[in-house]
């Protein structure tokens, strides 16, 4: 850590930055200081709104100049204070001294230009090469990114490539100008776990090979633990803890870091209550360093899952989506989203379906709730086959909670209208009665009854998901289909929602069909698990058996790709 100053690539000193809008001035950064040495991979971890992306963007001055203002502090890149640079000077820095990798590779690439042209544009701007050498150089760049057929990729448009390939192209572009510093803003968040593992190892190897420094921004502690030498933990615009990654994760000193680690389901007893960050912060005082150990999470007896009545059965169910149609609009080619699945859901259990994007797990959810009808095969509910239009009773019994409460709740309805809408379908309930029911439901999911006149955007993300759960519970369903209910939420909020779901199941004897890509969450909440791949279930069984000791190749690959904290905390 005592390296000479010339090996210091970036130094941010006591940076204060605020955003101004007509309504208010918000302090986004409150005295952020950090350093990055040559060849070092530094992580910045924090939840949404903590200021981690703002910090990174300010290094390249990518924030809107009319709204964001640095009020004090310094940003020194290779010994020069870039806060004094004008836009022209910044242009020569971007891409050459420092470059950036964004979260969403599809939007970071121009959709109407070939990959080769886009790489060439980057190279031209940097004036590195003769024009004739562009293609060879671009081919070499892509080969370096472990892309097998660089020529096909160079001639392709972004939409013709997979997400992982697109992100490799962007990494190649970021490295093309031989920068000293690369800022990666959640570069793997939009990718599947197995692809994420490849991208992370690629990024690490390339950085080591070229002695490039990397700032890696992420909300995911496990990913950071796997990749970074040092880590900074941000909370509400401040850096609350920093140090070597191992030290921070094994021996967190700040109460927030500890709370964040405790909120993760990884390494906790199954179905145990997770500690929530809010509670910990209240106990430990806001930003003050505190040495009091976090209270051990209460461990209720794990719900013994004796197989009860078979509530729902999928028998050789298939769901084919039309891929192409003839002139008359009749489908002629199909994409098998669900390709012959047998599945039984027992009363009172939590069955998880794990899989990556495109594996068909959401299609199964749609089949179960009746948003889609199976192309072939049968669905039985309590022993009777569901055919044609479902009865009101069946519809009531099977409810669904969507991934993103932002989009699953009508933004123009008030909380009480949202939670009671399922009750209004039959008609006949008075407004006063509905409001009483709303108060009851809000209390059930941990919201205050006096919040019932608010609109969804006046709630936080976690509160919105509580609202969505309350809405699903309004008609006393037997089965709740949860489609990635926590993956749009921050870690600390995820812990709250998982706690709520576990409590509700215990109190109301609910049966959950839990769909997720997150193995740690699945291991925490479910009794049995089914692993999906390409529309089929490749492995199933009790959670511990399948996840600890996978038998099938795909499950093994999946489990190896999952990043781990590798620690004994909790």
């Amino acid at each position, binding site marked *: 850590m005592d390296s000479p100053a010339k090996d210091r690539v970036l130094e941010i000193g006591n940076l204060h930055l605020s955003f101004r809008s007509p309504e208010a001035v918000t302090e986004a950064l409150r005295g952020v200081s950090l350093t990055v040495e040559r060849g070092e991979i530094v992580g910045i971890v924090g939840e949404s709104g903590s200021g981690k992306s703002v910090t990174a963007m300010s290094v390249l001055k990518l924030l809107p100049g009319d709204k964001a203002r640095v009020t004090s502090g310094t940003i020194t890149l290779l010994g020069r204070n870039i806060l004094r640079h004008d836009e022209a000077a910044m242009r020569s820095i971007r891409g050459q001294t420092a470059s950036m990798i964004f979260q969403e590779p599809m939007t970071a690439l121009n959709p109407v230009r070939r990959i080769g042209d886009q790489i060439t544009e980057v190279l031209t701007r940097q004036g590195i090469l003769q024009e004739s050498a562009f293609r060879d150089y671009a081919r070499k760049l892509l080969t370096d990114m472990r892309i097998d057929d660089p020529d096909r990729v160079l001639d392709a448009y972004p939409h013709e490539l997979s997400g992982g390939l697109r992100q490799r192209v962007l990494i190649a572009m970021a490295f093309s100008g031989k920068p000293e510093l690369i800022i990666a803003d959640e570069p793997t968040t939009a990718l599947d776990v197995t692809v994420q593992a490849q991208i992370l190892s690629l990024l690490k190897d390339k950085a080591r090979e070229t002695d490039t420094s990397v700032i890696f921004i992420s909300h995911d502690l496990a990913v950071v633990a796997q990749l970074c030498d040092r880590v900074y933990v941000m909370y509400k615009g401040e850096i609350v803890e920093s140090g070597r990654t191992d030290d921070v994760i094994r021996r967190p000193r700040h109460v927030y870091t500890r709370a964040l680690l405790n909120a993760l389901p990884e390494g906790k007893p199954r179905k145990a209550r997770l500690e929530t960050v809010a509670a910990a912060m209240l106990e430990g005082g806001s930003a003050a360093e505190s040495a009091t150990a976090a209270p051990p999470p209460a461990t209720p007896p794990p719900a013994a899952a004796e197989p009860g009545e078979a509530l729902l059965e999928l028998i050789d169910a298939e769901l084919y989506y039309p891929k192409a149609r003839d002139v008359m609009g009749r489908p002629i080619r199909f994409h098998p989203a669900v390709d012959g699945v047998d599945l039984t859901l027992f009363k009172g259990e939590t069955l998880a379906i794990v899989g990556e994007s495109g594996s068909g797990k959401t299609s199964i959810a749609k089949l179960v709730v*009746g948003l889609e009808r199976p192309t072939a095969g049968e669905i039985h509910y309590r022993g009777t086959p569901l055919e044609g239009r479902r009865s009101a009773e069946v519809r009531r019994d099977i409810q669904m909670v969507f991934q993103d409460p*932002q989009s699953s709740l009508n933004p123009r309805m008030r909380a009480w209208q949202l939670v009671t809408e399922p009750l209004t379908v039959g008609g006949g309930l008075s407004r006063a009665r509905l409001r009483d029911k709303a108060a009851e439901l809000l209390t059930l999911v941990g919201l205050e009854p006096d919040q019932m006149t608010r609109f969804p955007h006046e709630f936080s993300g976690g509160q919105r998901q509580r609202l969505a759960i309350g809405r699903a519970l309004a008609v006393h369903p037997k089965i709740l289909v949860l489609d990635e209910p926590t993956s749009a939420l921050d870690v600390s909020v995820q812990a709250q929602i998982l706690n709520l779901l576990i409590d509700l199941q215990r109190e109301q004897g609910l049966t959950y069909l839990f769909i997720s890509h997150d193995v740690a969450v699945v291991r925490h909440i479910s009794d049995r698990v089914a692993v999906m791949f390409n529309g089929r279930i490749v492995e199933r069984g009790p959670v511990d058996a399948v996840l600890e000791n996978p038998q099938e190749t795909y499950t093994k690959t999946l489990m190896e790709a999952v990043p781990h904290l590798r620690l004994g905390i909790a």
Partner: protein
Amino acid sequence: MAIALADSRTKRAQTRIRSYLTAEIVTGAVLGTLVLSALIFQPLLITHDPMAGDLFARFQPPGTDGHILGTDELGRDIWSRVLAGLTWSMSAALVSNLISFVIGTALGLLAAEMPGLVRTIIRQLIDTVLSFPGLIVAICVITVFEQGFWPLVLTLGFLTWPVFARVVYAESLTLLERDYVQNARLIGVGRVRTLTRHVLPGLRPTLMVMLAFHFADMLIAESALSYLGLGAPLGEPTWGNMLAASRDKLIFAPWMMLAPAGAIVMAVVTTNFVGDGIAALSRRQGKGIDQ
């Protein structure tokens, strides 16, 4: 504590009000209020009977004998006639606008909700109506029926509803894909209710803006048809009729043309500003809602 709380609340109210005071919203509100008050206080503002002629005071230039904008070929007061024309033009534009809006929105929603035959028929209908030559249709209608308020507004309404239908159709298609609409269907909310409770409110900002701008289009269309003698009954004090009457007197009585033309421009500019204001307002209000 209580005082501090009340203090911060007034302060928040103040900043909220200030955030509404953007150039577009203020201009739209001020101009809109002006035109509306001209409409309401019209009986007080009119100086002469708009229909009463005085053959001894023909072609008086503006300012003579209390005729603010002069007189026309029959000695009628132009200022009073322009004000009287305001009522006619505004009501014609408003009613044709509403007809267009109701038909267009209903058919647009229907086309979005019912794929297949219904959608195909409505889309063909939209294309058919759009390819009608409007002027010829208007001439036919006026030949069959006689000139008057209802033939005029009905013709305009039935000729322009595809403007609304196309936008409503396209926007509803994306709204119907939203999770919360799927969610509503899941819990058994019926088709009509889904459309009125979940889709229509989402269209509100767009529809408000469209109503304002379509109103301006209707104003111009109404004046143009009246100018051609296809709109308002002859002699009726409307801007189009006044323009038509001024045609051959342009050289020696240019005020006869300038007054109604100026009125049309003012009205159209005002509605456009009101439209901009509404757009800015719904952007402002939608800040938390549509992201």
